[in-house]
């Protein structure tokens, strides 16, 4: 047989025996679920935005919800959650999970603050936490791949270990540094500023999302991430380097949690040892809302981005209209269950 199959001169048209083809319904809604879901999410965001705009109408344009200030606020809020959620998406697609990201965020932020406090150059205060965060991610990945430990347990353990370490580092208190310090002022200014009307922190989220999206959807390693989540053994047999792929996703998750931690320190101008507590759940929720499945092989950066947008629009709007913030949790939780439910319906539909 030729190395690259070539079509013979007289190739017959495919015969008509369409043996048990995909039923028309599955080619419809269930077959194009990813697109449907994203449109659906966008639709919900638009509806929510419209609702909040109406509810915060003050008699003149723009309504409070749609003021530049508020939209920029949503952007800033989205930035930290979004970056961490993007990292989590990579891990979830491999049918893994990273529960340590909230703690990685915390330790990264505190390390950055400590270094600034001690007068270290800004560049060092940014690079050290990133290296640390990536190393933690690699460590997680190594334990999971070489020792075959369940990701849930490994990262849950790290969640605790890191949170404890963070408290030790800060002696149980917030780490504050002088915001007017030479090494810190530019840092804080950057976090508070906007460029072309868009908050800098949001630009970071955009940059991260674009790079992550291109890597995940257009490169070979990105393909392997999906393959691993779809059929680990099959991928292994096909020659995919399982270890490299596993290490890659956990390193990315750790790294981005580090980025988020630094962003948060820049925004709040202090190193909070409790920063990031619970963020892992928000990250997972955003990814799943965006179409990722905990069983792996599903999900996208765009979807996660929409998931984060939805959650932050909801949070912001509920706060503005004065409704108790607990409603946000109720709505978010219900949406999550709904999305997962519909995903299962889609799966059953396709299985005929």
């Amino acid at each position, binding site marked *: *047989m*030729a*190395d*690259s*199959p*070539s*079509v*013979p001169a007289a*190739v*017959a048209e*495919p*015969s008509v*025996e*369409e*043996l*048990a*083809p*995909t039923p028309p319904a*599955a*080619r419809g809604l269930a*077959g194009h679920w990813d697109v449907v879901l994203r449109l659906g999410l966008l639709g919900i965001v638009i509806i929510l935005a419209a609702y909040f705009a109406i509810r915060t109408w003050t008699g003149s344009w723009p309504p409070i919800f749609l003021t530049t200030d508020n939209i920029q606020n949503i952007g800033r809020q989205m930035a930290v959650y979004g970056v961490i959620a993007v990292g989590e998406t990579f891990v979830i697609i491999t049918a893994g999970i990273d529960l340590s990201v909230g703690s990685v965020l915390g330790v990264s932020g505190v390390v950055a603050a400590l270094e600034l406090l001690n007068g270290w150059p800004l560049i060092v205060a940014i690079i050290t936490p990133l290296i640390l965060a990536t190393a933690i991610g690699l460590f997680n990945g190594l334990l999971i791949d070489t020792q075959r430990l369940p990701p849930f347990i490994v990262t849950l353990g790290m969640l605790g270990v890191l949170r404890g370490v963070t408290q030790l580092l800060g002696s149980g208190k917030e780490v504050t540094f002088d915001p007017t310090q030479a090494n810190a002022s530019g840092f804080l200014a950057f976090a508070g500023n906007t460029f072309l009307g868009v908050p800098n922190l949001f630009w970071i989220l955009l940059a991260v999302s674009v790079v992550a999206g291109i890597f995940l959807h*257009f*490169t*070979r*390693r990105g*393909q392997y991430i*999906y*393959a691993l*989540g*779809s*059929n680990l*053994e*099959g*991928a292994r*047999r*096909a*020659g*995919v380097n399982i270890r490299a792929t596993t290490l890659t996703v956990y390193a990315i998750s750790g790294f981005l949690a580090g980025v988020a931690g630094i962003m948060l320190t820049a925004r709040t101008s202090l190193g909070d040892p409790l920063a990031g507590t619970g963020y892992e759940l928000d990250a997972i929720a955003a990814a799943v809302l965006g179409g990722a499945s905990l069983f*792996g*092989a*599903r999900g996208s950066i765009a979807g996660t981005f929409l998931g984060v947008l939805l959650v932050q629009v909801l949070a912001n709007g509920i706060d503005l209209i004065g409704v108790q913030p607990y409603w946000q949790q109720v709505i978010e939780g219900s949406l999550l269950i709904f999305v997962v439910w519909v995903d299962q319906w889609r799966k059953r539909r*396709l*299985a005929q």
Partner: protein
Amino acid sequence: MVAEERTEIAPVLEAHGIFKRYGRVTALNGVEFEAYPREIVALIGDNGAGKSTLIKILSGAIRPDEGTIVLDGQTVEFHTPRDARDAGIETVYQDLALAQDLDVATNLFLGREVVLPGLLGMLEFLNRKAMRTQAAQYLRQLRVTIQNPRQTVDTLSGGQRQSVAVARAVFWGKHILILDEPTAALGVAQSTMVLELIQRVRDQGLTVVFISHNMPHVFEVADRMIVLRHGQRVGTLFPKEASMEQAVSLMTGALGTDSRTA
């Protein structure tokens, strides 16, 4: 093909004196195996006869305790399945090893993707268009009917899935294909699709070795049948000459000869 002609041609794959023991159980007890070019050989036998063990040895998944494997006249040793694949032996196990959530073209190229030319290629950017085109062409060539190559594997029928798994194994130009129960989970129409594919693959010059419990299917496509029982080879049958009853008798031990001396 008649046996007298066959002795002129050298086997493409042979195994001699294969022993495999698991503790006190002897899975394979000095088995001889041979497969010729452009042939479909069926490996048949009751449960526990050693068929799976033998093909696992031939595909490099496990190592024999004793015995040699000869490929194209050269003695070879397979330490891993990779070795067997590199030597030209592709195996499709019952689980198919397809990534259900990914599309047909992606599965076909899994592990061996085509990247874009130039700088993007060095960064490992995928050339999906090329892969899709080649996949569609190739499936057409093999008469595997898949409506849309962008379909994910989980939307395909069982027969289509098996066909994709077989097509993938053959795609890489290997000259020996081993199939473990290719029609086991399939209905009548879908089995036909797969059996026809196997024959087309043989006609294109490959050697196909397959395990099956389905006697009608075996008799339909096999050129030759090797019968195992309790870890030993108890006979060689030719579907054109032997009957299913003979085959089953050999498998279960009621008969101790092969069709040549019956």
